[in-house]
């Protein structure tokens, strides 16, 4: 076990020394940024709740408990799913297993080591995101050192229960299904659950918590949140125990901790039993993976020739990579939240509507920038080893660049227009906003897609990469930063003509159309030139590409 740990540390050191230092610091900086943002919001929420003069402490703690239940429900789902998937991967599919099992090391040591790997990998993110939440909670409701220790203890037990439960599922499931086929399906399943949680949490309308004017409704709301079914889950136990910590009810707290400990012990012994009874047997089963049969049709519906071949290849590869298409579900969930948000935004005065519409169009561009980061940016790096065939084939090089660009631009233009239309339906845009939306969205989406291709083209690895790997690469992060800068600058650019139009209406002066048209034209020309420059650079890079 000690040797395996040494090897792991050595591998980390080597990858750190061999040029991954920069990436590490960028990821660290981004992580800290998210941590700060999350910390800021939770601090504001708990701070606001704590200071509400109308509410007695008991009621504040009750609201805090319900909030924490929602947060821990999300974290528990994350824990369960990530440890489930990590278990399948680490216990049955990791590359070093054959080497380890053929070594003289005992199976118990190997298994324990793999379990440590699963625990660390699957709990890291949850611990990271929980930190600001727990900090804010302790800061307002459990500020003494002893209480903080109590909170941390119960949190560790919570994490342990989620991870161990996930490990049990992960160990058992290959008994019924082939892991190689199951893993992509489970990835999709996990994404469906995450998407559902996102929508579920939004539909709960947590903003109503903090509105003291709606006290009757809040009470009703609290009642509806007190779901008996939750009593059987660790996310409820931990929220309850935090309330006991804040109330100073040591005995009640200890009861929950003891219960947690017993559950953990039971889960651990189940895992030990599974190790002895089925682990090796299931590992053997993996070596005899069955062969499936795919629909191998190669018909051209939209294009022929090289474009047809590229189209078929792109569509088939996309549909057969669950990690790719399943992301569409998350996007659908985000769009749903976007729509729900718009329907729920209070508009105190009709004039605010124009400002909300303006921001809404800006938000649409942010969504498209996210789509580009997930789909357009990795598309060329994800070709991986297939680039050898593309570059050695007689196909004209420019055709490939043009195809990729168009393949990812077209659906995003449609999504952009769809979001604009949804915004129009909800906020009833006026004619000017519609024109502004079209003249801003279409060129902006075109530019963002081109920019994503440009940064994707700069990634020169030939191995099989995952989209996540590409997104957090130096070029992926650069794309994110530059796209954000572009959107902010573009919104600032349009602030002037938008202001001119509405100010003229407000003051009942004639609208200065000539100036507004000049601003719009300037944007279109600058944007067109930017698209042209980046597209040409992209093409040149591809022409000069060597493998």
């Amino acid at each position, binding site marked *: 076990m000690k040797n395996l740990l040494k090897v792991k540390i050595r591998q980390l050191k080597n990858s750190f020394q061999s040029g991954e230092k920069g990436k590490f610091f960028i990821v660290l900086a981004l992580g800290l940024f998210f941590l700060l943002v999350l910390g800021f919001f939770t601090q504001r929420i708990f701070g606001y709740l704590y200071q509400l003069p109308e509410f007695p402490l008991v009621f504040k703690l009750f609201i805090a408990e319900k909030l924490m239940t929602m947060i821990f429900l999300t974290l528990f789902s994350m824990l369960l799913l990530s440890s489930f998937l990590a278990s399948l991967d680490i216990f049955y599919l990791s590359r070093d297993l054959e080497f380890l099992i053929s070594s003289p090391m005992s199976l118990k040591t190997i298994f324990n080591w793999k379990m440590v790997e699963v625990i660390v990998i699957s709990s890291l993110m949850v611990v990271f995101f929980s930190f600001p939440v727990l900090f804010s909670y302790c800061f307002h409701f459990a500020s003494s050192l002893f209480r903080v220790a109590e909170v941390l203890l119960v949190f560790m037990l919570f994490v342990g229960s989620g991870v161990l439960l996930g490990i049990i599922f992960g160990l058992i499931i290959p008994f019924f299904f082939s892991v190689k086929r199951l893993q992509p399906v489970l990835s999709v399943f996990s994404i469906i659950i995450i998407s559902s949680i996102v929508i579920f949490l939004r539909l709960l309308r947590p903003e109503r918590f903090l509105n003291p004017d709606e006290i009757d409704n809040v009470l009703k709301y609290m009642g509806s949140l007190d779901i008996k079914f939750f009593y059987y889950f660790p996310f409820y136990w931990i929220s309850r125990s935090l309330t006991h910590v804040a109330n100073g009810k040591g005995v009640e707290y200890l009861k929950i901790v003891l219960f947690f400990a017993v559950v953990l012990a039971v889960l651990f012994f189940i895992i030990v039993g599974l190790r002895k009874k089925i682990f090796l047997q299931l590992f053997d089963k993996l070596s005899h993976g069955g062969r499936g049969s795919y629909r191998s049709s190669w018909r051209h519906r939209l294009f022929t020739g090289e474009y047809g071949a590229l189209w078929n290849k792109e569509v088939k590869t996309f549909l*057969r990579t669950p990690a790719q298409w399943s992301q569409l579900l998350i996007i659908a969930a985000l769009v749903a939240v976007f729509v729900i948000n718009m329907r729920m935004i209070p508009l105190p005065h009709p004039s605010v509507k124009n400002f909300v519409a303006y921001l809404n169009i800006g938000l649409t561009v942010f969504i498209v920038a996210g789509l580009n980061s997930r789909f357009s940016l990795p598309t060329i790096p994800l070709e991986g080893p297939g680039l050898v065939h593309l570059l*050695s084939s007689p196909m004209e090089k420019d055709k490939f660049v043009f195809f990729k660009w168009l393949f990812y631009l077209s659906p995003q233009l449609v999504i952009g227009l769809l979001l604009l239309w949804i915004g129009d339906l909800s906020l009833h845009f006026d004619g000017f906003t519609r024109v502004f939306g079209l003249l801003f969205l279409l060129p902006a989406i075109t530019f963002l897609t081109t920019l994503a291709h440009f940064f994707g083209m700069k990634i020169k690895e030939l191995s099989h990469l995952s989209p996540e790997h590409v997104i957090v690469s130096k070029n992926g992060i650069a794309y994110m930063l530059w796209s954000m800068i572009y959107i902010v600058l573009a919104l600032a650019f349009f602030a002037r003509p938008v202001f001119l139009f509405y100010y003229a209406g407000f003051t009942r002066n004639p609208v200065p159309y000539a100036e507004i048209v000049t601003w719009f034209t300037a944007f279109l020309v600058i944007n067109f030139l930017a698209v042209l420059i980046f597209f040409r650079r992209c093409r040149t890079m591809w022409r000069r590409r060597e493998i």
Partner: protein
Amino acid sequence: MLDVSRLIKRFGSREALKGISFRLEDGEIYGLLGPNGAGKTTTLKILAGLLAADGGEIRLNGEPYFRESSELKRKIAYVPDQPFLYYKLTGEEHLFFFAELYRIPLDRVREKADFFFKYFEFEEYRREIVEHYSAGTRQKLLITQALLVEPRVLLLDEPLISIDPLVGRKFKNHLKQIVAGGTTIIFATHILSLAQEVCHRIGVIVDGRIVVEGRISDLMNLAADKNLEEFYFRTVQSHEKLA
């Protein structure tokens, strides 16, 4: 006819090819031998259009050949030394995709694919995605893909790695057939017995230069070596010392 003259390739400050020249007639199999890093794969990659040469000239049937020459590239096919494939396509789809980049009609591709799936004994993997293939099956697919487009110049970089001897023999027999039809083959390999069996001529590359070239029997007679292995070791060692 393929004419390569004074080919130069630099990677930063390192000169990987230092003026490689050879000339191949139609229907000739030419073996490129040499130690690791000598420049065999680099030479093949330049011919396949994956790398741009920094100097020298390539002519195919008298016409100058560049990376962008689509028409000439249609006559060349390349089998890389690693299983560079799209893992999410089935074997059959991979062949269709590749053939369409060469603008070969799909009916003809289907017919030839039927033949090769049976000939190289991997018919049962036809509708399976490449991700689930063994190393040998992936190699069979790469070879099939290259043969399918009926190239005039076939570039093979260690093609028989991971292939079982029975299919290996079928592959060698097929090479003899296509060579009889006028196809030129360049074969980079470390397997000396294979080079001896298949190649009409060989060139030994050491440190980016072809140091010896000719018919195997002539070279061995000249050097009074008993076998190709002895000849190869002596040649490489003497030139490495010089380098």
